[in-house]
């Protein structure tokens, strides 16, 4: 059986997260020191070459992103850590921050050096007050020991809005506004927080940085899938024997995750589908479970790696009911700024409800498909664009289930 590879979680359970000395004895903050002895562009180049791509969902090359911000002259730049983690079924960023806060701080400080920023923010979701305390303790200890040099980090607590995980909405929220996404371009690396060049990266992305500086780009590029190297922390939920988190190389297959690490389906039932990447991910039927979890392989089967949530449902589940629940989520979380999302998520939910109640028709199913196409291309941000994915993928792969419910 495939094995876990704990890199991001290398200190998990081994150090006391509230003691910076522990992190230091585990080799902590050496990478920051090393990065600071290099010139910023060199750091950016190492990151680029490592092939590290964002762990927050969009999978953008991290070094490339840093390069944009590095390249711009500005009196002020910012580093923002996206710890909003609102994707249902995901708690990997919490595990990282709770158990090894300094690994995130170190990654942020290295980014600060690379792009020329001295101020960082961690936007942590309101549901994690304990994590906010842990982070603040860690920041205070690192400051006291002078480990961060001139780099400052402030923690901001979110207030319960899924859309604030979207980077421009997150920026609006730090600025004290309603968390509504901005029109892009310009993208944050050019004009982000207070219109200054800003790098927004996910917690897990930052947690990967120190080891890349320490062990080199080639080492990292050699782990897991070629086009999406490294590891991914996954959280297993739903109808699965082991509801655990794991960290595996990105060339691990879905089958290994669900049936190996997850121990398969409880009570001798059969697998029906798995939704990966959170609530906006596609539902994957059995025929595709030999696919590896890396970003590009998942794309090829019209699925996503996303946040790394792995939500399994067994053969006894009513998939139309599950998708109806998901449709309600998006109606509720749509921020209302753009009409295609505001109206679209509401209509999708209405149609799903009707079908789920046995009152829908084939025409409603067809309408859902059409509406999904419109939303995917017309919505302002990823929320509305991806919202219909669970609907479309279940219509495509589990059409019989819809058929059984419509008149």
């Amino acid at each position, binding site marked *: 059986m495939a094995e876990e590879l704990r890199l991001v979680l290398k200190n998990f359970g081994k150090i006391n997260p509230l003691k910076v000395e522990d992190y230091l004895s585990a080799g902590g903050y050496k990478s920051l020191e090393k990065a600071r002895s290099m010139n910023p562009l060199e750091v950016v180049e190492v990151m680029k070459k490592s092939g590290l791509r964002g762990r927050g969902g969009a999978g953008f090359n991290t070094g490339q992103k840093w390069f944009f911000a590095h390249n711009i002259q500005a009196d002020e730049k910012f580093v923002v850590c996206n710890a909003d*983690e*609102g*994707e*249902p*079924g*995901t*708690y990997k960023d*919490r595990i990282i921050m709770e158990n090894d806060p300094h690994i995130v701080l170190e990654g942020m400080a290295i980014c600060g050096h690379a792009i020329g920023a001295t101020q960082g923010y961690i936007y942590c*979701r*309101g*549901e*994690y*007050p304990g994590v906010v305390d842990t982070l603040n303790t860690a920041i205070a200890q690192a400051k006291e020991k002078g480990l961060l040099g001139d780099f400052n980090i402030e923690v*901001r*607590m*979110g*207030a*319960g*809005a*899924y859309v604030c995980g979207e980077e421009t909405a997150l920026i609006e*929220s*730090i*600025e*004290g*506004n*309603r*968390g*509504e996404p901005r029109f892009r371009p310009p993208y944050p690396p050019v004009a982000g927080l*207070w219109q200054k060049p800003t790098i927004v990266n996910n917690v897990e992305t930052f947690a990967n940085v120190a080891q890349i500086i320490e062990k080199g780009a080639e080492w990292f590029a050699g782990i897991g899938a070629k086009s999406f190297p490294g590891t991914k922390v996954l*959280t297993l*939920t*739903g*109808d699965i024997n082991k*509801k*655990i*988190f794991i960290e595996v190389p990105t060339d691990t297959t879905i089958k290994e995750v669900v049936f190996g690490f997850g121990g398969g389906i409880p009570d001798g039932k059969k697998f029906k589908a798995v*939704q990966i990447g959170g*609530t906006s991910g596609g539902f994957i039927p059995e025929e595709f479970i030999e696919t590896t979890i890396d970003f590009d392989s998942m794309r090829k089967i019209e699925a996503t790696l996303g946040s790394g949530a792995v*939500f399994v*449902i067994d053969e006894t*589940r009513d998939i139309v009911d*599950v998708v109806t*629940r*998901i449709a309600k*989520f998006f109606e*509720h*979380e749509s*921020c209302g700024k753009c009409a295609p999302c505001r109206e679209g998520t509401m209509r999708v939910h209405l149609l799903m409800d009707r079908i789920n109640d046995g009152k829908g028709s084939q025409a409603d199913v067809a309408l859902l498909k059409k509406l999904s196409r419109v939303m995917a291309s017309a919505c302002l941000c990823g929320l509305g664009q991806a919202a219909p994915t669970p609907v479309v993928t279940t219509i495509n792969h589990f059409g019989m289930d819809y058929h059984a419910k419509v008149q």
Partner: protein
Amino acid sequence: MAEFKEIIMPFKNTPGGIIQAFHAVQKKINYLPENAIIDAAEVFGIPVKEAYGVATFYSYFSIKPRGKYIIRICESAPCHVAGAAEIIASLERELGIKIGETTGDGKFTMELTECVGQCQATPVITINGKPYAGVTPQQVAEILAEYE
């Protein structure tokens, strides 16, 4: 009321600090009274409608009074399939209120929430932010008793 200003003032010079200020107010009284919103608008030098817009955007903030203990039940898909509906039914029975309501003694308010990031055991509820994962309908009374 001077009382709210006192809570809000420390955030005046924090760029974008209004959300932190609202958190601080809610930590005291579990909701954002109209006066607190008006005071915040004044302290941060923005129109009241904007402060109100911020207060009503986020699901953590409430402009209506709530109970001393806020029970939130996760209804995201992983908790949904694990039986969140039965937990809701059990809570409703125990407390004699429905989702969105507050008990007559002002003690408990029930709210729905999306994933709170504790899905290592489902379903999940939180009481004033404290998570209870893998809750069964039978455990509900026992958990509530902690808040007697």
